[in-house]
């Protein structure tokens, strides 16, 4: 029962971690499906997080704050659009610049506005999104702990999230429907694949792409507002903590499709939930060693059937992993009176720096091992140039 509740809670944390990723991921989906790459998701979320908190605090209404946050995000989207659509600039660079811009401006403006560089005052009451409690649901963790599993599931996972969470979940089928079932979606997908086809069909490439980046702005705005007004009660500097980049990785993992994006974001959310919950994980040395050695063996087998580059890179990586495994073993066995064999069953603590890096490591592993070559929208990243 306790275990079940832990799982339910982990699920709850997963949702909390996944929602901003999901919204940002869908944002990126619209933009990139229209052929505009956007590594500025991070910056847009950050700007939205700041402005929504700031305006919520000032007006006392979180809804006004939400719209302000969305507005901030849309503004940056338009900047990105002007750079990459109107002036056909480099989309990656524009994205990098937007990230810097948001990181700097939020702090500078917060300093001017609230006299506290890098944060807004705490929000409370109507200035913040509260959880929506479904009928009959328990609201307190202490009550839930003693409830039945079904009740735990209902109260923790189904009920009690803020409205933005439900909006994010609804956004998934909605995005799918818009992309695949409407005229707008058809055109949007087409402009990301071959803008010339859209152009010669008599549709404005520029308008369509601007529409896409603005949708991207709206979704990023909600993601940012969620962080500062629902999860937290106020803005702190750099509070997006690289979620924009993880969302991009999720987008690639999902191969630019909405339902898969949901899956990818939940997975990444889960990694972060684990990271946030278990800052210390201990296990028997043998498991650690196996976890290091087995992939090494697999990689070596994979490499020997291929060329020199595979052998060098994978061999090197395996050597490092095996060295770490050996060191773990020796470390575990080096205690007083512990032999090498019993050393295997000593409990070792996994460094929490590793656990903190785990989501990133898993992202790479997933991209490398399970996604294969993700083919982005064909016109993605390239400005549409008719005449030079």
């Amino acid at each position: 029962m306790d275990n079940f509740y832990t799982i339910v809670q982990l699920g709850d944390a997963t949702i909390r971690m996944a929602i901003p990723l999901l919204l940002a991921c869908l944002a990126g989906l619209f933009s990139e499906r229209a052929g505009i790459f956007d590594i500025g998701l991070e910056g847009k979320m950050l700007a939205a997080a700041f402005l929504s908190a700031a305006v919520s605090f000032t007006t006392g209404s979180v809804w006004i704050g939400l719209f302000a946050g969305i507005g901030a995000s849309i503004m940056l989207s338009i900047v990105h659009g002007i750079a990459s659509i109107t002036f056909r600039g480099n989309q990656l660079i524009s994205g990098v610049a937007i990230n810097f811009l948001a990181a700097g401006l939020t702090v500078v403006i917060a300093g001017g506005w609230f006299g506290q560089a890098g944060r807004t005052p705490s929000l409370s009451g109507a200035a913040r999104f509260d959880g929506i409690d479904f009928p009959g649901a328990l609201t307190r963790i202490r009550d839930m702990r003693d409830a039945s599993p079904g009740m735990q599931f209902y109260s923790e996972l189904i009920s009690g999230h803020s409205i933005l969470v439900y909006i994010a979940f609804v956004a998934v089928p909605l995005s799918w429907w818009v992309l695949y079932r409407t005229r707008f979606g058809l055109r949007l997908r087409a402009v990301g694949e071959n803008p010339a086809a859209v152009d010669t069909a008599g549709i404005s490439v520029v308008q369509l792409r601007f529409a896409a980046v603005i949708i991207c702005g709206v979704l990023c705005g909600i993601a940012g507002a969620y962080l500062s007004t629902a999860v937290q009660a106020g803005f702190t500097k750099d509070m997006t903590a690289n979620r924009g980049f993880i969302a991009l990785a999720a987008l690639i993992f999902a191969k630019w499709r909405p339902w898969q994006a949901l899956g990818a974001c939940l997975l990444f959310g889960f990694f972060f939930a684990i990271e946030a919950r278990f800052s210390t994980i201990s296990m028997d040395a043998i498991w650690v060693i196996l976890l290091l050695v087995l992939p090494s063996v697999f990689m070596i087998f994979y490499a020997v059937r291929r060329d020199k580059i595979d052998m060098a890179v994978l061999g090197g990586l395996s050597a490092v992993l095996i060295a770490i495994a050996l060191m773990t073993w020796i470390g575990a066995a080096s205690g007083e009176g512990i032999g090498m064999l019993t050393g295997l069953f000593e409990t070792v603590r996994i460094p929490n720096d590793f656990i903190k890096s785990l989501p990133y490591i898993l992202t790479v592993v997933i991209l490398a091992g399970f996604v294969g070559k993700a083919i982005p929208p064909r016109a993605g990243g390239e400005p549409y140039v008719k005449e030079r």
Partner: protein
Amino acid sequence: MDAMPRWAEVVLVPLISLLLAMVISIFVIIAIGEDPFNALGIMADASLGSTQGIGYTLYYATNFIFTGLAVAVAFHARLFNIGGEGQAMLGGVGVATVCLYFPLPHWTIALVVAAAASALLGAAWAAIPAYLQAKRGSHIVITTIMFNFIASGLLVYLLREVYKPDGSMEPASPRFPEPTHLPSFEDMANAIGWDAFTSSPANITFFVALLACFAIWLLIWHTRLGYEIRALGHSETAAKYAGINPVKLTMIAMLISGGLAGMMAINNVMGEAERLVLNATEGAGFIGIAVALMGRNHPVGIIIAAVLFGMLYQGGAVLAQDTSIPVQMIVVIQALVIMFTGALDNLVRAPLQRVFLSMRKAT
């Protein structure tokens, strides 16, 4: 036939873009209620007004030259290496390891050994994203970003568990032994009896960076390897036709790139801090992207852009101390510079082209 002479493309476009970025920055400073000209004055004075200021500026510029070159080399192969930050961290690990655990008798030897170690670890850190891009098609932008995060996790671990002296609270290595200390500009000036660059961090690594620029210039435009790297960058299909192995070239270009980013550590870790600290790279890996772009991926351009960003850094740090403008103002200015010179360059180029075209027609 080009629409514009080359000098206009290379000099005029970036310069006007830069001016535009400055104009907007001035408006931002006015908007937060400060005097922009006073602020610019402080920044100019702090970065160029004294040999000490210049020493700081060149110290930062040295970092940016390395990361800028790193980005540029990868760019020539059409690879976007955002991982300079992580690669530079690993470079720091390399420097710290040789400086702390190898008995290096003299700074000259230490410099060579540390440069090699930092380049090696930087390259190793770039190897996996490069491999994944070349062999598995995993997007290098994403993987290098991830490797930045992983590098910082690894660095904290190493600092705390390996390098940190017992009893210290700070996750940082002890100071490197005396013989590994590199001569700073101050030392060099004093040696010739000139009292200058007092306690500024610029050091001999600046010259190593200039050397690296020359080497990269040779590599890219005067060697077969450079020829192949550029060919791959321009057209992978054509490269294949010519018998160039894209996988191999992708690896090589990224290894060189990672090595250069790693070598930044001899400046900041060995030359300045003389110990390894957590946040030593200070975002230089990201600035490198802007520097490479502004410098049009050419070593000479990179030197100029690096010095400019060095001035921004140094000027900004002093600005924050002397006024109530937060340090992040500098981040805003950087963003504007990157935006205008990197992404909005057509805003300047298109009208300029028209001007040159009409001038030509008129004659």
